């Protein structure tokens, strides 16, 4: 009944509105109501499963709350944040995470672009290539992390059995080597996804432009940097945004390969250690909320500063 009342007040402000218009707007109104009704379960579920826990995490982060001493629980304001932000561990972990993120996303962009170009120019065997690059994507991250760990471990690894590589090379015992293995694992696992996003962007570059440039005497390298890259910029930025946010929350690979040892602890591993191992929910929640804020800042940087638009992903273009 509400639907009938609202248009009446509307026609009051616009008295010349034709009856036909009004019928249309009634229809639009019922369509809108149906739309919201259909979206409601999904929207409400998403709000409950993310909104509520993050709000609760924020509330916990303002408490002194250690499960080993639950009686000492009290409101301490922002002091947990002060503890985290003044600790060298936090900043060291932010730095480690940044190295892993930049290292893997950069390599993925280069390799993913190469892979996308190979697939774009496919002469035959498009199917096998597509199927095989989906394999790393589909494999459980923990499994991939174990595979690479055993491959680089001198006790079992075939890498040490290869020529030119010393038999006792143990990359997972020092920082540089550990970071290298973690980045290799991440790159192997997620380059396919990057390649597929780039391939979709590559399909939008018109062939005529390449033909025209060819006639004007541009070589393949010039055509790539002057035509393909600029036209693919939106697709590249979206791929970078998705992968950067994903890489910044890295947890599985680090947990399996080093558990954060050798100076490879990521911010998510730090959060895990404080929350689950030390059961210090107050301090750990402060770490959680800070990671959340970092992720928002990264997204903000991509969208506002670099002008990344996800409109294509929303199907609006």
């Amino acid at each position: 009944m509400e639907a009938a009342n609202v248009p009446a007040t509307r026609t009051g402000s616009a008295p010349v509105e034709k009856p036909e218009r009004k019928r249309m707007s009634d229809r639009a109104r019922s369509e809108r109501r149906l739309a919201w009704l259909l979206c409601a379960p999904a929207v409400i579920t998403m709000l409950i499963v993310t909104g509520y826990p993050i709000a609760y995490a924020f509330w916990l982060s303002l408490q002194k709350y250690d499960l080993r001493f639950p009686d000492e629980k009290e409101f301490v304001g922002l002091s947990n944040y002060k503890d985290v932000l003044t600790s060298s561990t936090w900043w060291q972990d932010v730095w480690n995470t940044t190295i892993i993120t930049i290292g893997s996303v950069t390599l993925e962009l280069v390799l993913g672009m190469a892979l996308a170009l190979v697939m774009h120019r496919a002469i035959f065997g498009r199917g096998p290539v597509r199927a095989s690059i989906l394999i790393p994507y589909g494999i459980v991250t923990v499994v991939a992390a174990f595979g690479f760990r055993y491959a680089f471990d001198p006790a079992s690894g075939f890498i040490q059995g290869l020529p030119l590589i010393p038999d006792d090379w143990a990359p997972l015992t020092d920082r540089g080597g550990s970071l290298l293995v973690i980045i290799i694992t991440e790159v192997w696992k997620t380059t396919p996804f990057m390649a597929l996003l780039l391939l979709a962007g590559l399909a939008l570059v018109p062939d005529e432009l390449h033909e025209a440039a060819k006639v004007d005497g541009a070589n393949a390298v010039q055509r790539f940097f002057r035509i393909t890259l600029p036209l693919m910029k939106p697709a590249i930025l979206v791929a970078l945004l998705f992968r950067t946010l994903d890489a910044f929350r890295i947890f599985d690979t680090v947990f399996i390969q080093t558990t954060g040892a050798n100076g490879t602890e990521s911010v998510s591993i730090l959060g895990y250690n404080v929350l689950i191992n030390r059961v210090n929910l107050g301090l750990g929640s402060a770490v959680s909320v800070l990671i959340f804020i970092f992720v928002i800042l990264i997204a903000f940087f991509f969208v506002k500063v670099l002008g990344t638009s996800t409109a294509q992903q929303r199907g609006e273009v």
Partner: protein
Amino acid sequence: MTRTPREIAAWSIGLLVVLLYAMIPVMWILSLSLKPATELGDKRFIPKDFSLDNYDTIFSTSEFKHALVNSIGIAGIATLISIVLAAMAAYALSRLDFAGKTVILSGALAVAMFPPISIVGSLFNIWRDVGLYDTWPGLIIPYMTFTLPLAIYTLSAFFREIPWELEQAAQVDGATPWQAFRKVIVPLAAPGVFTAAILVFIFAWNDFIFANTLTSTDNARTVPATLAFFTGGSQFEQPIGAISAASIVVTIPIIIMVLFFQRRIVAGLTAGAVKG
């Protein structure tokens, strides 16, 4: 268009490199899983002797079998729930006209980018209070944080491609709305729904952080978390062979799905991005 031999050679090399890139790590784990215990340290890529002992080991204990059942059940139920909820939303988003479409899609995208570590502490504390810690629903609920946005995205992209006019056409031809829906729309939508379900299932199957933090026993512990805490004969011995065998067992279904449905999976993964 004819190709020069040089182009064909270059492409063949590209093809080979891509195949090796994808397959070497998988082959390596397979090789480890087939090595007898005494040869695990031989640094060979191809095992000298083959043995199925590692597979016998993992299937002789209840730990791995429980984990497998938990993984299939939890990922399966999470997929089912999120596909049903997302299909309703995606129908509205792709077919009905209403303000708030952009808000919902952007919101879903934001939720998809959400760092799981930010909520595990809260969930850990709440779940212990309400009795959801170490239970199936205790994992299915947080899985909605990533399965729902993914399902909404892929399904809206697929639904946009459906020629909905056919529904009216069928009704004009005398079909009831229900017949038009069941005989025309369902067959058109089914492949998209199925693909979205595969993608969502792969994501849920892959989860480690929630399974690691919100479970403690084989009551709800899924395969990835079980692998991380697998112990061999002694506490300090890494059961490389058993972990590798278990890894292969959970990888094979994914590889089969990927091989059968690769074309549609690619379409789902790049959903929306292809639109010009």
